[in-house]
């Protein structure tokens, strides 16, 4: 009987280890500081996680398809700078579609290199991280970009607005999460993403156009980045060139924390959302505990690595294994 419960507990841990960790973590922090679960604080965390979350939704498709995307941080800086600059020259109504078009071009470029030319996604997106940063600086001339008439534009709605009392960034994140969850789990495209990431050769042998599927995951990722860039620009109405710097790793951490396999073929949108929230709440919790900002970097990563390790350990039912 005891063995049975232990086995059941093990199974629960293996399947929902991250959720369990999330729950434990929330309880501990809430006990340490009741303000942590104050509704205002919770809403604040979700709101400030929304931009990261939107990017993580797109990267989830890329990762399930068996690839990486390390370019999303610098691509988000690019989108933000571009849309802010065009806001004053073309007006917001034209600036937004123009920025989306340019960002999707970047995604298409990566998609061609990784999908059709079959180059290693780590190398390609690492290179693009640098290259896009360069493009951003070329566009801005290295200067911060600001909207001239901050009071007179409706552009702030995506980052600062409320609908029925709910912040727009949370609405965008939630809506996109629902739509992309349906795309991933309910459409033929989603099925093919799992197949290509799970076993690309078998997918090819089943007539799945592997290159096109990979290409489309990068288009989707770029689309999400464009939305994130729009939210970022709208929130601050002005930006540095480096606004998205380092976010590619946080995004990847959220996706992996959610349980998507770095080898591809596994993961869900729901789990990624959990991963995003865990990351957001960890940082918030540490802040409330009064830890210095830079200590957070260290502690956040220690927790992430611990969580991933426990997740893997639960899957192979021991803490250490000589083989993967």
């Amino acid at each position, binding site marked *: 009987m005891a063995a049975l419960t232990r086995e059941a507990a093990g199974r629960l841990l293996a399947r929902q280890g991250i959720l369990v960790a999330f729950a434990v973590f929330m309880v501990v922090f809430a006990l340490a500081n009741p303000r942590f679960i104050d509704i205002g604080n919770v809403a604040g965390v979700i709101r400030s996680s929304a931009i990261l979350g939107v990017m993580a939704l797109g990267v989830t498709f890329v990762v399930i398809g068996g690839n990486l995307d390390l370019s999303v941080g610098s691509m988000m800086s690019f989108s933000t700078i571009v849309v802010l600059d065009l806001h004053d020259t073309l007006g917001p109504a034209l600036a937004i579609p123009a920025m989306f078009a340019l960002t999707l071009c970047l995604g298409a470029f990566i998609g061609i290199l990784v999908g059709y030319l079959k180059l290693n996604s780590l190398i390609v997106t690492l290179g693009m991280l640098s290259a896009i940063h360069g493009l951003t600086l070329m566009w801005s001339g290295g200067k911060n970009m600001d909207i001239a008439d901050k009071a007179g534009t409706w552009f702030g709605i995506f980052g600062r607005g409320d609908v029925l009392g709910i912040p727009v960034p949370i609405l965008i994140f939630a809506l996109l999460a629902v739509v992309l969850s*349906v795309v991933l789990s*309910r*459409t*033929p495209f*989603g*099925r*093919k993403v*799992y*197949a290509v990431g*799970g*076993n690309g*050769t*078998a*997918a*090819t*042998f*089943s*007539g*799945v*156009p592997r290159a096109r599927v990979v290409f489309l995951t990068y288009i989707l990722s770029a689309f999400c980045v464009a939305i994130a860039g729009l939210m970022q620009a709208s929130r601050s109405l002005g930006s540095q060139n480096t606004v998205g710097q380092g976010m590619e790793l946080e995004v990847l951490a959220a996706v992996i924390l959610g349980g998507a396999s770095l080898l591809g*073929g*596994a993961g869900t949108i729901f789990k990624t959302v959990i991963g995003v929230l865990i990351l957001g709440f960890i940082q918030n919790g540490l802040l409330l505990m009064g830890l210095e900002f830079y200590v957070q970097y260290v502690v956040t990563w220690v927790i992430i690595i611990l969580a991933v390790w426990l997740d893997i350990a639960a899957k192979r039912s021991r803490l250490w294994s000589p083989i993967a």
Partner: protein
Amino acid sequence: MTDATPVLRLEGIVKTFPGVRALDGVDLELRPGEVHALMGENGAGKSTLMKVLGGILQPNEGRILIDEAPVVMTSPLEAKGKGVVFIHQELSLADELSVAENIFLGELPRKRFGRVDWTRLYATTDAILKTLNVRFDARTRVGDLSIANQQMVEIARALTVSPRAVIFDEPTASLTDAEKVVLFDVIEDLKAKGVGIIYISHRMEEIFRITDRISVLRDGQYRGTLRTAETTEDEVTQLMIGRSLDLSRSPVRHALGKVALEVRGLSCGHLYRDVSFSVREGEVLGFYGLVGAGRTEIAETLFGLRTPSAGSIRVNGDEVRIGSPVDAIRHGIGLVPEDRKGQGLVLGMNCRDNMTLPQVDDLSTGPFVSDGAEVAIFDQYRDRLDIRTPGWRQIVGNLSGGNQQKIVIGKWLSMRPQVLIVDEPTRGIDVGSKSEIHNLIRDLAAQGYAVIVISSEMPEVLHVSDRIAAMYSGRIMRTFAAEEVTEDSLIQAISGLEPEKVA
């Protein structure tokens, strides 16, 4: 050759796996200075026996004796230390390192402070290479060598320990005739030094050219040892195949339909040349030959994974161009690939999703996948193929090999193909499921499908085929009708012994 003390002796080796007795009391005696062929069909137990000898597997019963002293070997390194070395079919060399580094990998000579003693390393290596009469030196990058020369590096590696027994596993599989001569010279040299050599090969021609004795395994059992000089190919074949095998084909002959697939003069670089054949509806065409004879490559071409350099493919009389699997599927060609886990299935996905993967677009309603339609297809083929699984949600990786294979077959049947190609239908599948798959293939033909079966197992090909194309070295040597074929003639045809005949 004298009856000197054997360098190596295996006594009553038994190795069981769950449900299978892979080795059932195998004896083998290797004398110094002899080349001893180990023969048997695929699955007869040769590789298991060699794994036992190499310390990779532990026998359940029996003894291994080196120079008449019993030894226990628990790792390949230990086997090597005792003078038993393997030259594998698949080379295990590091391309980027030099010949010398590869040969002494893991045991590079050292100077003080752990620095590598390059001078000594190269000198020792060149000394070994000299005995092999090769034309490259210790500093050559292994990646720059031909396959044959890489094999020489493997042999040189074996010679660093002054071996007692050297095991060659299909060493000539990727060698040209000229390169074979060099290899055989090296084997002669080893022999002269009193080393015992176990030579594993399917190629009768080579066996009779270089070996002194031949031991035969069948179904995990030792069937006897023959002196090469005193035996014939027929006798060896008899021993390998035995009489007990059920070679009866389904006696019910049904009428054949129109020609479903016709291939004329198909070539693909050096992989295969000028291949012509046709399959009718209701017919099973078997392809038999050694690994590397070009069978799988033909299947891959028909499925759009390779581009032919010449020739034509007709499906139902219309000439088609197949540039990708998508094209092949559109023209009604399905392929159950050779590597079930690597090519046939997404192991982490569930049964239904694997089965419906090629037609997931066709099965969708609006933008969404249709659960109902997919489950209906899965249920239909689960019943028809008798796939044993708790339900469609079961992850394919958890099924047995036989049931996995049925999922792959179901995947293509549900597409209602014109031509179904099945490559190695029962590889890695237990005996019971094997005959089930064979019956299934016969049933498909009876239902009017045109089926191509590629197999390395003779009983399988004989059992399921209406006609058999025997391949050797990229060519169809001869096409037999099921009524006229004999094991001997088939073995001769795939060993390249028979003069080429027009198919």
